[in-house]
């Protein structure tokens, strides 16, 4: 970090103040985030926006209780006031202000090559216009194109009473394009994101053009879409966005906060067969450049590669500091927070299914009748029951082993533990997709990934018989 957000001595005094009423653990998280975005719509550059958010969140643990306060005032006085507010949960009195000595800062420079601040605004606009042109050149039925470009530079320092003192510099860049195609039967939409924990170098001409063409073609193809079937059918998920299935179907249920409250169908199942033997699921914060990459999590713990399910056997859950402390173990590097205004909790990073041995084309060829899902949208899960849904935003019928008619958008629905048993083929063609994961009102960037794979049966929520 080129400049210090808050001096070490100040952090030490603030942690000392936070522990002053008998807290067992205190943490200061100081964050400075600069964001910028540009939007093209209706062929117009509609808006450039810049934002700056800076502040600190302070938490104090006393027994089973967490006290938390945040402030945008980074002066010592402001931080001490927030520390005092966070400490209010410790009502026992305690022994006065504690002496805290932090060691050397563990700093983590960004891997970004072209930093957002070094990119001319005119260059961003040129990129938006180019994407718009490419999308519209795909066909006259493209009537709407919306392109957005955003970047964020997030620097934070986290220090706690266990001696953690670390900082990170996270640069993320995101581009997305949405197209509307209009035909006799109404309007259809296409969408493609490109996002990474990288600088502007992420947006190569090739990446932008591929996304623009992909979004336009998706919308145009869906103009001929027929209503999706209704009922149970085999489903082949194309590599990439299908990973959201694992994010929803079991990822959230493997987060230790749900486990420790016995509010997950996977509680108490470590060592048991919870999935088909083809399933090896990993959550991995160390994949450099991916959307869910982090050098350290928001509690200062290094990002890690954690195997959650190995050959169908549940091996471990994901942990943050608080939940790991309760179990007398260490965090798995999954403590994340949306901003300094939020408490950290257990979150995924990049969650993916390891590739298998099959050939993607053969998986389709060996499916007599089913649905081929080229792109999944978002999803949602109830961790206590395991029931989940996720939306297909680009899907086709499979008839006699061939991909045929496009289908209209609809949701798939299933039960996590059940669907994990239904994986009967996994191909070699692995890829990843960026997404935004929402949990208890907090959004964080995550990656999901998988290779082309087949589920023996999933309920398709369409309208056709």
């Amino acid at each position, binding site marked *: 970090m080129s400049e210090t957000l808050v001096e070490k001595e100040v952090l030490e005094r603030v942690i000392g103040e936070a522990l002053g009423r008998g807290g067992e653990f205190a943490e200061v998280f100081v964050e400075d985030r600069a964001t910028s975005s540009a939007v093209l719509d209706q062929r117009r550059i509609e808006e450039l926006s810049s934002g700056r958010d800076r502040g600190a969140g302070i938490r104090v643990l006393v027994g089973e209780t967490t006290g938390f306060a945040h402030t945008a005032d980074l002066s010592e006085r402001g931080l001490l006031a927030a520390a005092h507010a966070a400490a209010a949960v410790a009502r026992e009195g305690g022994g006065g202000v504690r002496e805290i000595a932090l060691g050397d800062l563990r700093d983590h420079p960004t891997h970004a090559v072209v930093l957002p601040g070094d990119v001319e605004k005119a260059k961003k606009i040129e990129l938006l216009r180019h994407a718009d042109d490419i999308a519209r050149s795909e066909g006259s039925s493209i009537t709407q194109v919306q392109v957005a470009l955003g970047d964020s530079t997030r620097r934070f320092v986290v220090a706690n009473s266990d001696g953690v003192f670390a900082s990170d510099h996270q640069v993320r860049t995101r581009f997305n394009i949405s197209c509307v195609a209009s035909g006799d039967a109404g309007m259809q939409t296409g969408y493609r994101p490109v996002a990474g924990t990288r600088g502007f170098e992420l947006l190569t001409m090739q990446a932008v053009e591929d996304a623009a063409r992909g979004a336009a073609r998706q919308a145009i193809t869906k103009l001929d879409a027929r209503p999706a079937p209704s009922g149970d059918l085999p489903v082949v998920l194309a590599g990439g966005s299908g990973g959201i299935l694992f994010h929803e179907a079991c990822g959230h249920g493997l987060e230790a906060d749900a486990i420790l409250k016995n509010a997950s169908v996977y509680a108490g199942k470590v060592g048991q067969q919870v999935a088909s033997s083809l399933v090896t699921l990993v959550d991995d914060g160390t994949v450099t450049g991916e959307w869910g990459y982090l050098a350290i999590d928001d509690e200062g713990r290094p990002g890690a590669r954690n195997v959650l399910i190995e050959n169908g056997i549940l091996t471990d859950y994901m942990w943050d500091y608080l939940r790991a402390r309760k179990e007398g173990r260490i965090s798995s590097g999954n403590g994340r927070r949306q901003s300094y205004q939020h408490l950290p909790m257990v979150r995924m990073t990049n969650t993916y299914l390891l590739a298998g041995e099959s050939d993607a084309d053969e998986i389709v060829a060996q499916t007599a009748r089913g649905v081929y899902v080229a792109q999944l949208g978002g999803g949602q899960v109830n961790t206590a029951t395991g029931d*989940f849904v996720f939306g297909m935003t680009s899907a086709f019928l499979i008839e006699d082993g061939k991909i045929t008619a496009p289908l209209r958008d609809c949701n798939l629905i299933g039960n996590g533990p059940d669907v994990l048993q239904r994986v009967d083929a996994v191909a070699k063609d692995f890829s990843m997709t960026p997404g935004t994961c929402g949990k208890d009102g907090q959004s964080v960037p995550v990656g999901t990934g998988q290779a082309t794979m087949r589920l023996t049966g999933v309920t398709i929520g369409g309208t056709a018989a």
Partner: protein
Amino acid sequence: MSELVERAQRILESVQGDEQIEVYLSSGVDTEVQAYQGEIENLSSATSSGIGIRVLRDSASGAQVGTAWAGSLDEEAVSDALREARDNARFATEDEYLAFARPDGVAGASLELSDPSVLSTPIEEKIAMAIELERMVRGGDARIRQVDSANYSDYVAEAAIVSTTGIRATYARSGAYVSVEAIATDGVSDQTGWGLSAGRAPRDLDLREAATDAISRATRMLGAVKPASMKCTAVFDPRSTATLLSIVGGALSGEAVVYGRSFFANRIGEDVASSLFTLIDDPTDPRHFAASVFDGEGLACRRNVLIEKGNLMGFVYDTVSARRAGTVSTGSAVRGGVAGSPSAGCRALVLEPGDVDQVEMFRRVGEGIFVESMSGVHSGVNPISGDFSVGITGLMIRDGQLAEPVREITVASTLQRMLLDVLYVGNDVDWLPGTAAGQSLAIGGIAVSGS
């Protein structure tokens, strides 16, 4: 309050040349308590403030707007934001329709939306409410095996919008909520239920109602089965109806319409819904949780009839979308805090109540499905094409009464079809937090996808 306005007015003084400036300032205080196993799990308190600045440059060939925001009101953050907004404006495409709102003579409704007792209520009382709520749910039914979280939260917020085009509006609002999620078990499988109560102050909250709702939703789903696929009438509960109305409201945004992203475009005067369906956006009704005196551009909010007896009457507009459509703002600018720019949107939707209660509706429907919760709304509903497919849990309706619980199914149709297929509108309006109130609503021709 006047302090915020004065602060905003001072920023306007730095206006240069032909530009216009709009300043949106906000500040707030939040408290949040989570209870677990009779103890405080989390206690958060915070004050926050922020500024959003928009700068408009005018020229012969059109206007350009640039925006910037900051999460604090310190001098440096404010001057940085103004400089960035000014710079950003240079890069926008010149557009003859861009403009900031100007006073239109419509007076704001007289509404008291902020209750000072939120701040004067001691924190101990707020903590006690969360703990009591958890206790009520745990003790309310032997089948409740876990309470995932029992929460109390409140806020008091103020905002001011001023502009060099003559806008000077201030807002104050408060809110208090309790919510709880219960997990019930029958020894074989688990089900969850969620209850809430909302108001403008702690004294408005009904813990018993939230607890009872969570318990009954969780327990009556026990033993739920996956039914066979079928086509039938669905009765949506008030919460689900509110979600539906919010989605329909999105397609009634003048912005979606002028941009050709709404299935309602070019259909003014047509019958787009059943004659039982009269949809109004009315932020001036104080019963509505999202009631507001001013919109996101500082114009007075007003009552807008959008669909009357099935006939499409109009859309909601902010200043810019109205200019594009050749009309005037309906006082319907919404914005997502200081970081968001105004856009046209519904704020306080309500469906004119019908003449049947829920029990009578079940009786009239006879055979069908009662939708108690929906999931995957953001992934399964396409507001542009109108495709609709959501996961639900609920109960079958047999012989005019609620029967066995069902789960792991989807209900699907298109929004266009659903509006026309409305069979009964309930009289049981629930003024829920969010952009829409809801009541029981029966819709025919729904495809249920199960086993």
